[in-house]
């Protein structure tokens, strides 16, 4: 392992994340992983890694890092005004750092989570097949905890090439300004009256303060559901649940793996990155689309990742 970056300041919540541990759900452990898979995957591809390599997920306020050795990095996702040695630097593009260079973040301009990839992939503790940090039980990544000042980030494998010039075409970079989340109707949508259903798809919802990697509580119209209690079933990220009381919960990466509340809608995969970039206080709305449209949006995102050169 190569020691590559030193953490001078950790930022608000910076964790090591990869594509998660989908098979751990049989033990009640959430799949976890990067909240914004598009930004995570793009950062890795730009840095010359496989998409499955781990990155640093930086929430709301980014860290300050110094290079211990020369390395290539890429920063994607939320726009936190990145600076190298005090000078503004490009996102969604490979950046070559020399030993001693400083990567810092300024004020948040758009989005909630930025991703830092390092050529060679971020190293960390593997738990149940994944490097992803799962804070609830303190496992994975950097000892199961967020980064702290003084931590040293290593790469999983020495980077082959120090010369990287990858970037994502400007027109394909997400701006996170449109907060419309596309959904497919969920298995229990028919439990809503037509009036409540119209409110689900016609209202603006606001992320409540207690929203995190597990899920988002949504303030807006209360959507009471009729019908008998359900038997618990396996849940997926992107599910819009309606607990008693009718305040919707959108399940995110570290979601509970099973539950018995009605699921009235599920985000399509192309909208998960948009949801991942929302913060408490942000407004959103749901738009119902069909499977065919969802598959087309999914293909568009893949094409955008394939355009990285």
């Amino acid at each position: 392992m190569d020691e590559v970056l030193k953490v001078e300041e950790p930022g608000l919540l910076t964790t090591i994340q990869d594509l998660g541990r989908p098979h751990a759900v049989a033990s009640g452990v959430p799949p976890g992983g990067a909240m914004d898979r598009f930004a995570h995957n793009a950062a890795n591809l730009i840095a010359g890694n496989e998409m499955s390599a781990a990155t640093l997920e930086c929430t709301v306020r980014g860290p300050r890092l110094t290079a211990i050795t020369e390395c290539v990095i890429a920063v994607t996702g939320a726009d936190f005004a990145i600076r190298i040695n005090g000078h503004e630097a490009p996102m969604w593009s490979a950046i070559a750092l020399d030993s001693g260079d400083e990567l810092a973040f300024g004020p948040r301009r758009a989005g909630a989570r930025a991703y830092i990839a390092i050529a060679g992939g971020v190293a960390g503790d593997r738990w149940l097949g994944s490097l992803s940090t799962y804070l609830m039980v303190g496992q994975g990544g950097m000892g199961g905890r967020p980064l702290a000042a003084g931590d040293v980030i290593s790469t999983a494998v020495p980077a082959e090439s120090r010369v990287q010039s990858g970037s994502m075409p400007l027109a394909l970079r997400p701006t996170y300004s449109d907060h419309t989340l596309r959904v497919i109707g969920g298995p229990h949508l028919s439990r809503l009256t037509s009036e409540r259903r119209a409110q689900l798809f016609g209202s603006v919802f606001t992320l409540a303060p207690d929203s995190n990697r597990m899920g988002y509580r949504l303030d807006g119209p209360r959507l009471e559901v009729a019908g008998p209690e359900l038997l618990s079933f396996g849940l997926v990220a992107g599910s819009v649940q309606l607990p008693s009381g009718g305040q919707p919960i959108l399940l995110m990466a570290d979601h509970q793996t099973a539950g018995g509340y009605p699921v009235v809608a599920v985000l399509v995969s192309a909208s998960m990155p948009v949801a991942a970039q929302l913060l408490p206080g942000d407004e959103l709305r749901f738009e119902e689309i069909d499977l065919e449209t969802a598959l087309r949006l999914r293909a568009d995102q893949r094409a955008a990742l394939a355009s990285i050169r």
Partner: protein
Amino acid sequence: MPPPRSTHKIRVHPLGETALLAELGSRLDTGLNTRAIALAAALKKRRDVRQATAGYASVTVNFDPDQITFEALSASINRLARKRPPMEEPGRLHRIPVRYDGPDLEAVAERLGLRVQHVVQLHSKPIYRVFLVGFVPGWAYMGPLPEELELPRLEAPRKQVPAGSVAIAGRQTGIYPLAVPGGWHLIGRTAVKLFFPDRDPPSLFRAGDRVKFFAADG
């Protein structure tokens, strides 16, 4: 006796474009759960399926839409579910000592019109089945709870339930493996550990296991 062949069509709903929920029924029933576990195991072997998780009477499937369409997978699930499931091996038996002194025990007895001692006897009598493991790491939904102990969940869930709490709700019972929020009635506690981060799988319980509680001091 092998479980009977199903004659009911399975209801399959999309969960986004990369997952689906296959519902075998809506009853808390050991036969349905056995079929759900067998169906999940059969689906996990398919290349186009990334993950299949059995619920009480359902299977949640993550699939690769590049390899199979929702319609084609739904048809395959209905074909698979019509097959007679293999005889289920009896699940491992866990004996769990419980100190029946939970903060809700007396209120539970009062609401049910039972003496506390009777609640303890009723809860510790059956051998429960683990229907599914999920919700939080290590949590197992067990049942069926005797009808005499059936109560709806707490109206106001607790912000934090101590780890090791033994709880009941509806026709179900369970043990909180970690300190998490919870809405079930706490009737006792156990020192048995349910979650082992250093093992793989990390959960003591697996779907299909059997659990017997017994009253113990300390």
